[in-house]
Structure formats: structure tokens, C-alpha cells
């Protein structure tokens, strides 16, 4: 993986190429998870990666942020500032909300007053400024997710990755989280990738989606096109039916 860290950090301009994935493949224990995947994401664009559980969606995110190494292929990330919103929030339980956000600023070695200003500003964005000294265990699931959002954007990243941002949340909180995602896309103009299988999330927050199944991209297009697509994979996924190529003899493949 290449992360072009020598690029001077500035606000990305819409349309600027931020992520390039070329012929990416990854296996675990000789089981091929993703095979020969390629796509690009530009600043100001939100790409949705959808597909059934276990199809390799989260693996792509981990490859993008360097947590996993690809077996073959290339990942080029044109920014060193990258925020990731984890499925389970991944807040450090022994630290307060403030300290969790401060971690993201650690590399910048800011003065405490400067650090405090940024943290308060980001917590205001997600409506959690009253919880600055709370510990994660004292927050609800939705509040933890919002804290995770605030942490992901603490450094005004040019790339934001969302791993199942609304999974496990009630419909109202899902809508709140989706609204934050839309607001962040407008405010920071990042290149965003949303990994999800929640209909409402990919429908509302993405500009373009790719459907993964059995390690391959089976379909690519806009969310509107997805609903009317005749592609057998996309049709089955969008309409949540049993009939289609995603089930074989009643067993998910």
C-alpha cells in the first residue's frame, strides 16, 4: 500500500482523486475474500460498498487504512489524514470522550488550549459537548457512535471511512447518524466510503455504490439505478428476496 504522506495537507477540492484501488486481492487461510477489485473515489464523493455479510466489505476498509496488507494489487491513498468510524465505535474505555478525541491530535503536538478548542468544536458538531468528560461506558450506543464520528473528523480528514455506521442502531438513531454523514460530506468535502448493508444508509448517503459478492464487484452504479437494476445480484439485494444468485440451495455462498 502507498500512502502519499508528502502531499501538503490542504482542503481537498471536489473531484480531486483521493483513493485508487487497483486489482486488489486478499485471502484468509487460503480462502479468497476479495479478488481483483478496482475502484477510485474522488473528493466530495461518497462511495457505498454493499453486499451480504462476509463478502469482504470491511476487509476493503482495513486494506485502505493499512490495517491489513493485500496479497496482490495496490491501494493508493492521496492523503495522510484519514478518519475511520468503526462498527463498534472502538472508543478507548479507559479514557474520557475528551481524551479519546485528543488521541487523534496527538501527532500534531498542539498546546492544550488549541487542542481543547478543536475537541469542543468537533463535539458540538455531533451534539455531545455536554459529555466531554464522560467515559464511553456512560454513553448510549448512539452517543458512542457520534463520539466515534467526532474522533474520525478531529483532524479534518480528506478521507472518511465508515464501517457499518448504522448497524445495531434503532431507526431513529440511524437517521440521525445518516444526517451527520450527509452534513460531514458537505462540510469537509471528503472522499468517503460507506460499508453497509442497511438499505436506508446506502440509499440516503451514497453517490455511487458497488455491490460485492463472492469476492467480486457484481454491480456498480448510483443508488437510484440500483433500485431499478436488472442485474440479478443487485436486484436480489435491493429487493431483499430469496430468489437470485446470492443463495444456492438455500445456503449463502
Amino acid at each position, binding site marked *: 500500500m502507498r500512502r502519499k504522506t508528502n502531499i501538503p495537507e490542504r482542503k481537498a477540492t471536489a473531484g480531486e482523486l483521493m483513493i485508487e484501488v487497483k486489482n486488489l486481492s486478499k485471502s484468509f487461510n487460503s480462502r479468497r475474500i476479495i479478488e481483483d477489485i478496482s475502484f477510485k473515489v474522488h473528493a466530495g464523493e461518497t462511495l457505498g460498498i454493499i453486499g451480504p455479510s462476509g463478502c469482504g466489505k470491511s476487509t476493503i476498509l482495513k486494506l485502505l487504512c493499512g490495517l491489513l496488507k493485500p496479497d496482490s494489487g495496490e491501494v493508493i491513498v492521496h492523503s495522510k489524514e484519514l478518519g475511520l468510524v468503526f462498527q463498534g465505535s472502538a472508543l478507548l474505555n479507559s479514557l474520557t470522550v475528551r481524551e479519546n478525541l485528543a488521541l487523534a491530535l496527538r*501527532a500534531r503536538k498542539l498546546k492544550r488550549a488549541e487542542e481543547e478548542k478543536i475537541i469542543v468544536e468537533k463535539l458540538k458538531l455531533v451534539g455531545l459537548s455536554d459529555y466531554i468528560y464522560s467515559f464511553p461506558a456512560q454513553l448510549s450506543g448512539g452517543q458512542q457512535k457520534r463520539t466515534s464520528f467526532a474522533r474520525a473528523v478531529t483532524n479534518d480528514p480528506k478521507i472518511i471511512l465508515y464501517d457499518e455506521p448504522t448497524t445495531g442502531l434503532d431507526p431513529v438513531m440511524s437517521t440521525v447518524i445518516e444526517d451527520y454523514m450527509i452534513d460531514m460530506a458537505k462540510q469537509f468535502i471528503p472522499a468517503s466510503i460507506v460499508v453497509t448493508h442497511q438499505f436506508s444508509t446506502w440509499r440516503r448517503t451514497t453517490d455511487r455504490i458497488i455491490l460485492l459478492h463472492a469476492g467480486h464487484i457484481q454491480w456498480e452504479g448510483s443508488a437510484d439505478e440500483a433500485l431499478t437494476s436488472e442485474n440479478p445480484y443487485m436486484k436480489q439485494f435491493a429487493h431483499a428476496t430469496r430468489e437470485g444468485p446470492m443463495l444456492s440451495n438455500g445456503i449463502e455462498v
Partner: protein
Amino acid sequence: MTFSSTSKSLAKISLSPLAFVEKQFGQGVELIGQCILLFFQTLYYIIKGEIDWHETFRQSYMIGVKSFVVVSVTALFVGFAMSLQIARELVLFGGDTAIGGVVSLALIREIGPITAGVIVAGRVGSAIAAELTTMMITEQIDALKVMRIDPVQFLVVPRYLAGLMMMPVLSIYAMFIGLLAGIMIAHSAANVPPATFLDSVKQTILDRDFTVHFEKSLLNATIVIIFSCAIGLHTRGGAEDVGLATTRTIVWTMTVIFIVNYIVTSLTYAPR
């Protein structure tokens, strides 16, 4: 319904004895390799001076201060039992005045460092392994990496330094509590006055004994912290694996503590 623990146990049983030993040996070699690598990574950050002192002092409180009560109780009763046995035998041969010397030798050379090491391994090592394994499972370690924070610098270095600072303190403390127990037993069971006991201690203990005591406590701290962190940072899976990681930590740290303490003793005190 099947449970994963059951299936894992069955999988172990289904291995042939030779394959089982081979697997265990392989895992042991892998763990030792991970510990050596982690130790040098930790040293690298310490030498570079990239130390979070606030976290180090917080860990010192967790590792050291919170262990004082359990070390006190353990050292007191180990001291009682050992002194009673020694006093009983020495009184038979008229060696009452040597009780202090023999008790203090055992305490400073072996019992003090071992007691503190074992207590810290059980109380702190298992807690560190459980904490880091949980952090791995809940993606907190991944979150640190995404924020370009090395988990070794952020999590291991403060714990290691705290262990190095607190283990000698706990070892010396365990030794003094053991001596106190010795004085009480010598006085009550063998009628040896505390002044005679202490006089015997002074005549027996050498400066080298304190050096070895200190070296052993530093080695024990290294064993407990590095093994527990290495196990924690390399465990994957779910809730069951947290339990397995703590068990593995206790078994490995205690075994290695006993082996290393014996090696140091044999290198220092073996007759030439």
C-alpha cells in the same frame, strides 16, 4: 447446540499426542519470539524518550500501589510459615541465634522477589492480558493504528516502565514484611529477642544479595509485563479468548519467573 469451547476442546483431544506436543511447542516458540520483538520495540521507544509519563504514573498506581495489600498478606504468611520451619529445626541443634540470618537470606535471595513476582503476575499480568485482548477484539487497537499511534508506545511502554519502577519496591516491601513475620515467630516460638534476630541478619546479609534481589525484581517485571502484553496484543477471537489469554499469561509468566530466578541464583550462588 454446540459451544465453541467444547469444539475447541474436542479439536485438541482429537490431535495425536505427538501433534499436540508439536502444536504446543510451536505456539511456545512463537510467543517467545513475539516477546523478544516486543521487548526490543519497547526499549526503542524508551531510548528515544517517547514516554507518556502521565500514563506511566497511572499504571504505577495500578501495578504497584494496588498490589500492596495482597503482597503484605502473602509475604506475612509466607514469612510466618518459613520462619516457623526454620526456627523449629535450628532450635533442635541449638542454633537459635542464626534464625534471623537464615530467614533473611531466604527472603532476600528468593522469597521476596518470587512472592512479589508471582503476585504481580496473578493480579497485574492477567489484568493487562485481559485488557489488551479486549482492546484487540473491540478494534480499539485498530483505532489507535488508524490514528497513527503505535500500540507499543501507547500501551506497552508505560506499563513496562511502571513495572520496572514498582516491582523492586514491592519485592523489598515483601522482604521486610517477611522479616517482620520472622521476628514475631522467632520471639514467640523460639524465644529469640528481636535484637538478636536483627544482629544475625546484619552478620549474614551481603551487599551482593541486595544487588541480586534488585536484578531479580527487574527481570520479574520484564517477564510479567512483556509476556502479558505480547499475549494480549496477539490474541484474536471473542469473549472466550479473553479468558484463555489470562490463563495463558499466568501459566507462562509464573513458569518463566521460576525458571529465570533459578538461573540467576545458580549463576550467582552456585558453589565454584
